[in-house]
């Protein structure tokens, strides 16, 4: 996705320091201290994790830290919210994957 370089009210996007980090081993360039989710979206990456049980892709939902849908692993720490974690040079970000030991889908007969 593109960055909004010029905005009629908010003005021009000033030159800012860029940094590189990795997302699932892919090298990503972004603006220092912008949230991981914004840097990834600016690089056209929407999927931040796969659901633990169903493996369905998920991306940002609320973008302000309430929903935890954007949780990723940052420098080895799980459960970090990509929407409010600023990127730093050399940061290692990994998406969440389906659990290796899924549970049966009991939803059909638990009622």
């Amino acid at each position, binding site marked *: 996705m593109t960055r909004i370089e010029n905005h009629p009210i908010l003005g021009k996007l000033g030159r800012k320091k860029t940094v590189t980090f990795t997302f699932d081993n892919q090298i990503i360039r972004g603006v220092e201290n912008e949230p991981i989710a914004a840097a990834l979206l600016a690089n056209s990456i929407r999927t931040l994790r796969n659901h633990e049980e169903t493996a369905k892709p998920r991306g940002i939902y609320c973008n302000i830290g309430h*929903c*935890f849908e954007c949780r990723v692993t940052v420098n080895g*720490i799980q*459960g970090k919210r990509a929407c409010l974690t600023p990127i730093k040079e050399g940061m290692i970000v990994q998406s969440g994957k389906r659990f290796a030991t899924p549970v049966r889908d009991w*939803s059909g007969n638990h009622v």
Partner: protein
Amino acid sequence: MDEKEIIVCRCEEVTLSELELTAATYNCSARELKLRTRAGMGFCGGRTCRTMIEAFGIDKREKNRNQVTLKYQAPVRPVPFGKLGGKTP
């Protein structure tokens, strides 16, 4: 799961039809519905779906305006065990 299904609780992937069926079968409160289906019990703590779960129970608002339908409890955000009570590891 049918792709046309409507997910209500995103964390636990609990669907609208599952909630409707459970609510109809047990004629239960929103809290019981939550406990039976795990809707609202996932990673986000129910912040996203709580208003929807509340809309199902037999204890709908009219008689229960002065009590939160689904109780809030700490921790209100997930916290790593190593951080509980302070001090960075």
